[in-house]
């Protein structure tokens, strides 16, 4: 895909009054910043951003047109398009961020895990903490006939796949889905039983003992440390370095009806993402202040600041530097790579959400249907022409094919290459592959 530099300027927006939805998590930041810094207004857009009750409501409202677009889990546009859950064609031309999640366990589980974890010279646990050290605890639960419950935020959420990846890498089976048999609990042959809990309720549910651990975005891992009810043991950065997390999704019908509006929205969001990562996270304290307002994330400043400013507190007092815990713009974070979409599809296949074997070409077709780097490139070109951005800040649109170089930074050391999803699935001990069917 090549674009002439002498492009026609983007025309006026077809629809000026827009309403976008989000869930109260720190990675909704690009939306808040684009609004507060006037980037939406610069594009002639009058945007309302509105918190939604949960991921399901958010998606349904985008589908029925109550929302023009929303902050979505990367798996949501893919899941909706292939018809897992609500069937609707959703597209995304803007990836919102990388990383940003963590896995937290209750104080009791932490105490029982601790003896198994190797320590460094200072007596601190060696990171990353693998699920291998959790396995004895889960086995104990099984021996006593007690269920080991964990929470995640949505069946097609990043958190679900990350938690499953981490558990399976440590030999703990997270369970299969069997939608063709009407079983969408995701708990078939599971050692650890995963279920959905809305992010803000995670700490309270953990405290109540209903779940023993969870995987969620910020600020809900740090909240558990602050309130002394749980211990975050690993960040998703350590499970898979620089993994794609949220996207900005719109329905295809909306995008077809409002192409200029869509481009302008993407432009505003790219500028917001750049601002968030500018001067080496120098703007982050201001961003945290904005996010801590009740209309956005609304959690306390200190809680949000912890992860947004590049530190992460594991056990109380065990604060470590994780500078890339939240990445909004660096490493081409905003570019919608096909390979990112394909990774999510492989995990849907791995856990049975996609029940039948699919050829590699199918994975690529779906990725092309949902992820739209062409729209992104047009928005980026327009920003370059307006002198608001440099060409060097983007991938080279002339040569970029939408596949990241094979990625090696997984906790289990397995390499992921987006060009061959089926071969990738064969590398896993736990999970469906080839013609497996439940």
């Amino acid at each position, binding site marked *: 895909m090549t674009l002439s530099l002498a492009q026609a300027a983007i025309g006026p927006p077809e629809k*000026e*009054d827009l309403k976008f939805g989000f869930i*109260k998590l720190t990675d909704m930041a690009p939306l808040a910043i684009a*609004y507060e810094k*006037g980037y939406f*207004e610069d594009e002639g857009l*009058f*945007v*309302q951003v509105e*918190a*939604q*009750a949960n991921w399901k*409501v958010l998606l349904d409202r985008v589908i*029925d047109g*109550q929302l023009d677009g929303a902050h979505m889990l990367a798996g949501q546009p893919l899941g909706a398009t292939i018809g897992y859950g609500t069937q609707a064609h959703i597209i995304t031309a803007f990836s919102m961020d990388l990383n940003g999640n963590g896995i937290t366990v209750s104080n009791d589980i932490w105490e029982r895990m601790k003896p198994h974890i190797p320590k460094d010279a200072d007596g601190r646990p060696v990171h990353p903490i693998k699920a291998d050290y959790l396995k004895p605890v889960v086995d104990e639960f099984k021996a006593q006939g007690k269920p080991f419950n964990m929470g995640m935020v949505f069946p097609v959420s990043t958190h679900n796949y990350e938690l499953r990846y981490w558990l399976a890498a440590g030999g703990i089976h997270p369970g299969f889905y069997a939608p063709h048999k009407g079983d969408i609990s995701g708990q078939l042959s599971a050692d650890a039983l995963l279920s959905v809990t*809305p992010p*803000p309720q995670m*700490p*309270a549910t953990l*405290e109540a003992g209903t779940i023993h651990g969870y995987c969620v975005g910020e*600020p809900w891992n740090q*909240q558990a440390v602050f*309130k002394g*009810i749980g211990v975050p043991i690993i960040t998703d950065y350590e499970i898979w370095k620089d993994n794609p997390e949220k996207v900005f999704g719109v329905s295809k019908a909306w995008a077809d009806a409002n192409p200029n509006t869509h481009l302008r929205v993407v432009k505003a969001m790219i500028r917001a993402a750049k601002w968030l990562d500018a001067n080496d996270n120098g703007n982050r304290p201001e961003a945290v202040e904005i996010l*801590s307002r*009740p*209309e956005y*994330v*609304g*959690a*306390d400043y200190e809680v949000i600041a912890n992860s947004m400013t590049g530190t992460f507190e594991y056990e109380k007092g065990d604060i470590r530097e994780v500078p890339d815990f939240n990445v909004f713009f660096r490493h081409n974070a905003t570019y919608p790579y096909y390979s990112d979409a394909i990774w999510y599809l492989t995990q849907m296949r791995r856990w049975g959400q996609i029940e039948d074997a699919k050829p590699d070409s199918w994975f690529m077709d779906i990725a092309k249907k949902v992820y739209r780097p062409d729209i992104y490139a047009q928005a980026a070109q327009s920003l370059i022409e307006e002198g608001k951005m440099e060409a060097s800040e983007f991938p080279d649109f002339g040569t970029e094919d939408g596949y990241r170089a094979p990625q090696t930074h997984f906790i289990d050391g397995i390499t992921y290459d987006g060009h061959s999803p089926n071969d990738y699935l064969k590398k896993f001990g736990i999970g469906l592959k080839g013609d497996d069917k439940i």
Partner: protein
Amino acid sequence: MSLRAPSADSVTRIARALLLPLLGLLVFVFAWHIAARNIDTSLGKFPGPTQVYEQSFGLIADHQRERGREAAFMERQEKRNAATLAKDPGAEVRLRNYTGKPTFVDQIGTSLVTVLAGFALASLIAIPLGILIGLNGTLYAALNPLIQLFKPVSPLAWLPLVTMVVSALYVSDDPMFAKSFVTSLITVSLCSLWPTLINTAVGVSSISQDLKNVSKVLRLPFMTHVLKIAIPASIPAMFTGLRLSLGIAWMVLIAAEMLAQNPGLGKFVWDEFQNGSSDSLGRIMVAVLVIGIIGFMLDRAMQLLQSRISWDKNAVVR
């Protein structure tokens, strides 16, 4: 106006009317304060009277700040529109409403408008229908099972269905009302029409035989019978129903707003709960008290209306 010292009798009356409620309130606030200090949640201490006092001022300040931002927003728009017009005098410009967040005060307004609209719709359906089935035993027998079946249904059960139906049927490019408003309104109406319907029917059907005989002797036409005999006679029962309906409407609305995330006080409470900041619980408590006060005032307003309209000025209204 005589200048006699107030009699002992009137002193006791005033004392009873003023001091006892005050005493009750004071005891409650004190007990609340003590209890709140001893409840420790994962979001901090349970909000006591002092936090609620602070947060209510915080919310008002918040509202004023937002109004300031709105003024700045409007100013920016006017500048931009002026620039557009300078470039192209024929361009179409318009001023649009502020896009910022609705404040606590805005949410109160939204909830009030929604509840009154839903209640009005419910009354428009329930009163005529109630009169009809009250006058006509056959119709009553036919509709009674339906009324008994739908009366106990919780609003939250209706909500998903109403949401789906409204999404499917209420489609226009420039809708007069927001979808969320229509959803809330219909849910509120569905739940709050039953008490009015039943009480009106009961009131109409239990008109004294003397009045009915008068109507027969005078050979009043049907409409005159309804307007001159049936309605005035059933006003007390009708108002009992209306007051119950309004109370239910207010309760249902808050729950519906919470669940469907429609704008209003319910959404405010839910959003604050999701925020989980150290101010959240205090703000929720402010909202709880405001919801209670508004519910109380709505009921009082209905009572006033009843004493205005009712022909029996000596009836004791409670």
